[in-house]
Each structure stands twice: as structure tokens, then as C-alpha cells.
């Protein structure tokens, strides 16, 4: 199999990354945290505070924008610039900010309801435009802040407050949504794997373009255990697949299973003497077609015993919207010269009335 070279990441040198000796504590805002005790959001906040001193951006240049929902309280707890906006619109607000302040590191914190239901439209358009914005979508498959209605990612037949007989809606697959919107970076992590989450947060930052990072987050009040089969020690290895670029897809309690690609059809195989890791599907995060197979294999082939994938599914370099916007202006000035206000106001045809 031919493997393309990995996307060249524009990671700054490690010395640059050391943010004036700041530590995670410097990113604690001091506002009292109001999430329920035991909420998965605490872990995500902690990993974010751990990663921020490492990415090499001045604290003053970091902005977190959120919408409405439990996850959207996130900016209040980080000592950066932040805006807690209105339901579903953080993506649109962040787009305007990035369009006019390219140098800022802009992060959007959203949830499955905020980002995929009321804000689904803006999410799709942010992804296709490819502003350099990092989207963290906390997926808990439930509406928490409104106290327990089903969400656009809840499994069909979910029994919730608003669906006592079970939900009828077919759920969104957030990664498929992002790929379908021509997102240039699509990844998944979970609250209960801090190390991997930190790695994914860094990758999200490093990507130049819109990063879509779905983070499984346990809502221990309204949907406790929704992801336990992927997060709990005894079953995690069997049910999850952590993909890495250029590496074969191996999973299982003893790393004894793998995924093999037969044409476009994936299959779970045991690693034996006859099937070596080299025969397995080697993950290529630059391949959009295979990324689609990867994130849809469970739903397309039910009963195939596929594990749930995590990691970076897809990454692509594409010009960023804010770059193109700036280029147009530079081009216009080069072509027409810097605008002359008096000439503009006067227009092409004037006449003079004398005393």
C-alpha cells in the first residue's frame, strides 16, 4: 500500500512553545465551576488547561467562544479572552472574529445540541469555509442543561424525558457530518483518556484550518455510562480503535485484532501467523474516502464487530477563509491602489453649481 507522507504540521519549535513559563494554573479563571460533580467536563477543562501552556501562543491571544449548554460554560473557567454567546451561534461569532483578527487563536466550545442541532447550519458552513478555528464538540448524547431530553446524537429509541416511548430520530454521526461538510480536520477523543485527549487538542491546534474534535463526555446525571463500553478499563481495548497515521489498525484486549480492507469493505480479523500487521489497513489520514469508511464502518456493517475509532480520521491542507479574504484585499489594493475616500464619495459623475 502506498502511503502518502503525513501532513506536514506547522508546529513551532519546542522552545517557542514554552509559553513564558506559564503552567496550567495560569489558565484557571477563578470563577466557581458549576458543573455537576463527576461531570466529564472537568476532565476536558483540565486537559485544556494543561495543553494551553504548551501550544506556544500568548495567553492574551487566545479566545474561547461558546454557545449555550453545559459545555458552553467552559470559557468562564479559563483565564483567556472568552465569550459565552447564544445557542448554536458560537461558530458564526468565531468566524467573524477570525476574519478580522487572523493572529488570534480561536477556539469554539460546543455540544451535541448546540453544535449539531440548533447550530448545525453554522457548523456545516464553518467547516466548508475552513476558517482556522478549533471546534471542541462535547458529545454526551443528551440535553443536560435543559434536564434530560434526547439530542441529535442520542441513539434511536432512547428513553428520555421528552421521549417516554423512545426517540424516533436517526442520530447524527458527528464525524460523518464534519466530513460531509468538507471539514479539513476530523478527530475524536474521550473525556476519560486524558493523555490521548491532550494529544488530540494539540493536533487540533496545529491544524491550519477548521479542526473538528468530537469529545465523548459522560453526563453522569442524565445519561450516565453512555460511553462506558469505550472508556472503562475492562472493555475499552476490545471496543476501541486508536488510529494513527501510517500505522496498521490494531485493537483488542491483547492487541490481537485488526481491521483489514478488502477493496472498500472493512473486516475485523484476528492477528495470526497468516495475518500479520502489514496486511492490515494502514491508516492514511489524508484519504477522505477511507476516512468515510472508517467512521461509518460500524453503522454500515452492523454485526461486523467493529470497534469505535478514535484519533485523527482525516486531515487536509486547504486555504483558510481568512487568508483568502485578506488576499482579496491585498489584491484589490495592488490593482486599484489604496482607496481614496474623497474620490469614492464623489463617484464617477459630478457637476458643480456656481454662486
Amino acid at each position, binding site marked *: 500500500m502506498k502511503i502518502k507522507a503525513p501532513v506536514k504540521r506547522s508546529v513551532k519549535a519546542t522552545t517557542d512553545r514554552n509559553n513564558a513559563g506559564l503552567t496550567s494554573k495560569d489558565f484557571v*479563571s477563578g*470563577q466557581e465551576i458549576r458543573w455537576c460533580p463527576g461531570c466529564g467536563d472537568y476532565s476536558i477543562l483540565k486537559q485544556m488547561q494543561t495543553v494551553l501552556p504548551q501550544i506556544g501562543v*500568548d*495567553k*492574551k*491571544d*487566545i*479566545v474561547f467562544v461558546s454557545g*449555550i449548554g453545559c459545555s458552553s460554560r467552559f*470559557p*468562564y473557567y479559563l*483565564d*483567556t*479572552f*472568552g*465569550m*459565552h*454567546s*447564544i445557542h448554536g*451561534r458560537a461558530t*458564526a*461569532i*468565531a*468566524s*467573524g*472574529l*477570525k*476574519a*478580522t*483578527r487572523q*493572529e*488570534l487563536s480561536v477556539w469554539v466550545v460546543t455540544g451535541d445540541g448546540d453544535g449539531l442541532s440548533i447550530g448545525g*447550519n*453554522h457548523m*456545516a*458552513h464553518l467547516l466548508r469555509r475552513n476558517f482556522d478555528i478549533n471546534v471542541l464538540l462535547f458529545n454526551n448524547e443528551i440535553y443536560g442543561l435543559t434536564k434530560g431530553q434526547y439530542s441529535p446524537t442520542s441513539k434511536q429509541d432512547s428513553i428520555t424525558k421528552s421521549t417516554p416511548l423512545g426517540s424516533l430520530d436517526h442520530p447524527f454521526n458527528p464525524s460523518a457530518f464534519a466530513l460531509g461538510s468538507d471539514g479539513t480536520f476530523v478527530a475524536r477523543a474521550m473525556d476519560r483518556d486524558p493523555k490521548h485527549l491532550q494529544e488530540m487538542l494539540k493536533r487540533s491546534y496545529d491544524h491550519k484550518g477548521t479542526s473538528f474534535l468530537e469529545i465523548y463526555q459522560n453526563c453522569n446525571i442524565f445519561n450516565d455510562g453512555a460511553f462506558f463500553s469505550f472508556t472503562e478499563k475492562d472493555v475499552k481495548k476490545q471496543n476501541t480503535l486508536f488510529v494513527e497515521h501510517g500505522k496498521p489498525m490494531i485493537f483488542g484486549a491483547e492487541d490481537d485484532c485488526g481491521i483489514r480492507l478488502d477493496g472498500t469493505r472493512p473486516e475485523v480479523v484476528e492477528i495470526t501467523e497468516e495475518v500479520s500487521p502489514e496486511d492490515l489497513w494502514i491508516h492514511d489520514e489524508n484519504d477522505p474516502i477511507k476516512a468515510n469508511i472508517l467512521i461509518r464502518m460500524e453503522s454500515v456493517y452492523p454485526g461486523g464487530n467493529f470497534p469505535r475509532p478514535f484519533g485523527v480520521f482525516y486531515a487536509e491542507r486547504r486555504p483558510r477563509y481568512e487568508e483568502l*479574504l485578506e488576499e*482579496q*484585499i491585498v*489584491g*484589490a*489594493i495592488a*490593482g*486599484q*491602489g*489604496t*482607496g481614496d*475616500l*474623497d474620490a*469614492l*464619495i*464623489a*463617484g464617477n*459623475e*459630478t*457637476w*458643480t*453649481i*456656481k*454662486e
Partner: protein
Amino acid sequence: MNQVLEEKQNVVIKFAGDSGDGMQLVGTQFTNNTASVGHDLGTFPDFPAEIRAPQGTLPGVSGFQIHFGSTEVYTPGDLCDVLVAMNAAALKSNLSNVRKGGILILNTAGFDARNIKLSGYETNPLDDSELSTYLVYKIDITKLTREALIDIEMGVRDKDRSKNMFVLGFIYWLYNRNPENTIGFIERKFKNKQNVRDANIKALKAGYNYGDITEAFSSRFKVKPARMVSGTYRSITGNPALALGLIAAAQKTGLQLFYGTYPITPASDVLHELAKHKNFSVKTFQAEDEIAAICSTIGVAFGGNLGVTGTSGPGVALKSEAMGLAVMLELPLIILNIQRAGPSTGLPTKTEQSDLLQAVYGRNGECPMPVIAASTPSSCFEVAYQAVKIAIEHMTPIMVLSDGYIANGAEPWKFPKAADLHDINVSIVKSKESEEKFMPYLRDENLVRKWALPGTEGLEHRIGGLEKEEITGNVSYDPDNHQKMVKTREEKVELISEDIPEQTVDSGKDHGKVLVLGWGSTFGSIKSAVKELIDEKYEVSHAHITYIKPFPKNLGNLLKRFEVILIPEINNGQLIRLIRDKYLMDAVGYHKIKGTPITKNELKEEVLKIYPKE
């Protein structure tokens, strides 16, 4: 032959035809020509919502009315002196607006059996005695255009598209004009389409020569240049004037102008105009919907630049939650509402002033926002500029009201010099001022908070839509704090009245029997009506409100100096409610809700109806 050159003071011409007949182009070309010879003028383009409504039908009629003269012109005119009708439907829908004895120029090719049937006439009006009270000229414009283009190799359909230029050429002849500016326009527009260019120029000249050589026309008309205030003028319509005002404000402040919008009639031309001026570092953003449009500008404002969104009433409805956010965040933001007839989709291409209460009150919660209204096409420049000044100096979103009539109407504009524009005071916090933690909701004497931008060290802070504690801006559910913040936000907006000009009287004395109080696009009609009434020795005055929220400080006292206040509006009574509410005074309304402007004559009648008897 020698035709008589008759002198006229004021003339109203209407060009009417199918929406594909190019009447809007004829109108704008004639307007530019009229402006360049120094007449005062007003125009009213009136077109269907459909891009190409069924040909030959009444809904498909597109019209352009222009009023010009040697005296001051404030409206597009009530009754037409000349109607050009390209087909039967155009005649039928406009005849009632032609003065008796007026000129009808009728394209006979548009009066065949099919056109007559589609327009709803039972018999051919060309043969009807109904037209005997007019001066009728029947010209087969279609045939004459085809004949003029006989040497040009193009299809008949394409040739027929030049018949509007024949009409324009003829009108140029009739009003003794030089058509050079239009020839120049055609040459520029079709520089890469030689055939089309030649066809249009030939048709234009053919129309002009037709007037010259045909003996049917006994007189031509001459209108002297208007006695206008000395200075340099240009012609302008409302939407480009808004765009220029915004660019001027951005240049003056040194802020980047970002226009986030979603296409909607009749606001889209603001976007089209701004998109042409990227060399002024203008960023335009066609968002996925109205909500994203305003939200993107909130992000821009948070970043310290000039965020502007523009729409019409239905779009304002969609943006209202985000406007509430901007009120809470206390960030500067401009929302343009180019009103159209509602409710819902309403009459998208027809004018109305029915979003005033929406502008003042249309948000959830106690959500005060300043409102400022343009009254004529050229006033849009100043209003947009002032809106930016208020938004930035008072850290608030502000709504600018215009409407379809102002947006598309043209008038001469004695434009200002950039150097003469007022200063706009932008006070962005440059750096952390003390060791204390930065307090985002600390206010100055005008209750204005500071604009603190991402990228400034030590100013890291969070703002949001939840109620905030005074000074710190932290989330607060404290009952007393909420009451205080609600009152503070209201007072902050009311304090703007300290910075805006006092209300003046436009025509007439500052006291008397009747004050006609208007706002928005009724300006021209009210001014014309009141001037005539004053000439007729009535004690009538006219005041026009630009600043609606808050009202100018002296407005209440001014109103008390008149016996009767008449408030004409193109709505079911909105300003009148605000006036009654604020000043507890009676006022008489006149409400026209037909999607068309109020005319001067209607208004005169209305004033006389309520004029106090001795």
C-alpha cells in the same frame, strides 16, 4: 422642421414596461443625464418581486418615475406629465397616475391582441375614447428598432432588447438633452461585445433622430437648471449612500469595516456596493443565514473592529436574539434595516415604514437599543456615519432604518469632503492600567464600558449573554443586581440624547397651528405639501425626526408649541404610539399602507381636514 421649444419648470416622467423591457436601466440613465445638466430631481423605481413575471401581465409591469425641475424637487412627483408605456399592461397600471392632458408615448407593438387580453382590457385602448384627454403618440418602437438595426447581425430577439434605448433616445430628444453620457455608458458596459454595443448605440440614436425628423411632434421641452445651493453634486441612491457612510466612518476611525449579511430585498445593494470597495480594506461576508450574518459581526466587534449587518424586516426578526446579545455584551454594532412591506414576506419590493416598533421594542427582555432613521437617499450617508459614531462612543448596537423607497430612489447630493466629517472618538483600552484585575463592566460618566480587545496583555476577560454583575462582569443571579443592570442599560441609551442634535423645524415656524411630524421616507412629500400650504398662508410647519431612540431632548417642548400634531406614516400608526407614550399628548395619524409613498396632494388634503377652524 422647426419645433417649438416649450419651457417647463417641473416635469414628471414615468417609464413603464414589462420587467424584461429594461425600464430600470432607461430610468437610471435618464436620471444621471438629468443630474448632470443641473436639475434637482427625485426618482421612484417600482418593480415586481419576480425577476421575470409573466410577460404582458399587470404583475409583470416594471416602472421608473423621475421628477426633475428648475425648482427644488423633494419627491418623485404625484402625477406624471409623460408616460412611456411599452405595452398595454404598462398603460393600464399607470394611466390613473397621468395628469389630464399629459403625454402618452405608446409602443403600438405592445398592443396586439395577446397583450390586450393579458392586460385585462376588453378592447384595444389605442382605439378608445378614454385616451382622448391625453396627448397620445403611437409609435411602433419594436418595428423601428428592428429597422434601425437591420445591418447588425443578431437575432430578432436580441435586437428587440435594444428597444429601451430607442425610447431613451427619443426622450432625450424630447427634453433637448445630449445623450453622450449614455453612449459612454454603453461603450464601457459592452466593451467586449461589439454587436451589443453597436446595437444599443444605434437604437439610441435612432430614437433621438426619430423625434427630430418626424413631424408628429410639435414641441420639445426645455427645463432650466435648478437654482440649487452652490457646490459640487452627484446623484445618489440610498443603499450606496449607506455603504459610503460606513466606509467613511471606517476610514475616519481606522477600524476595519466588516459587513456580514445575507441577501434580501431591498437591502442587497448595500452588500453589492461594499463588495466593490475592497481596496478600502472592506471585508464583506455573505453568511449562510441572517443569524450567522449578525453573529459574525458580533465576533468582529469583540475583536475591536467595525461590525455591520444589513437586512430587511424578516431578517431583523431572525437577528433579534443576537441583537439582545450585543445589548448585553455592550459592544458597538450597526444593524441596517431597509424596510419593506410586511408582515412575513409581505410585499418584498414595495415600501413601508412598518418596522419602527420592531426596531424599538422587538427583542426579548428589557433590551434598549438606539434607533436612527434616514429620510432621503442622500441622508443615508450621514445617518450611517452617525450610527457608527453613536455605536462606538456609547458601546451599543444601533439600528439604522431606511426603506425600499429611499434605497432605490435617487436625488442630487452635495457631498461632503472627507476632511469635514466629524471625529469619531474610539477609546480602546491600550494596556492594563493597574495591578488590579481588569473590570470589563466598569463605566464612565456616560455609563459606557471600555472596549478591551483580545490580544491586549492583562485584559483577559469573559463576557456573555447571562446577566452580569456590575463592574466585574461575572455571572450574577442577584435580584438587586439584575434590576440595577436593566436600569443602567436603559439609562445608558437615554444618555445618548446628550450627544445628538436638538430637533429642528424643517419648514415653517417653531410654533403654530399644525405641525406635520414625520420620520423616514415621507420627508419629501411632507416638505412639498407643507411648503405649498405655507405659500397658501396656512400656519403649518414640518419637523422630521432622525433620532428616534432616544428622541432629541427638546422634542416634547417643540410639540407642545403647536395646536395639532399630524403624524403621517406608511404604516398603521407606529411613531404616533411612541409620541403618545412618551409625551402623553394627542396626535392625529394619517396611515397609508399600500406599499407606495404618500403623495403631496394626499397630505395637503389631510392637513386641511384637521386644520383648526378659526
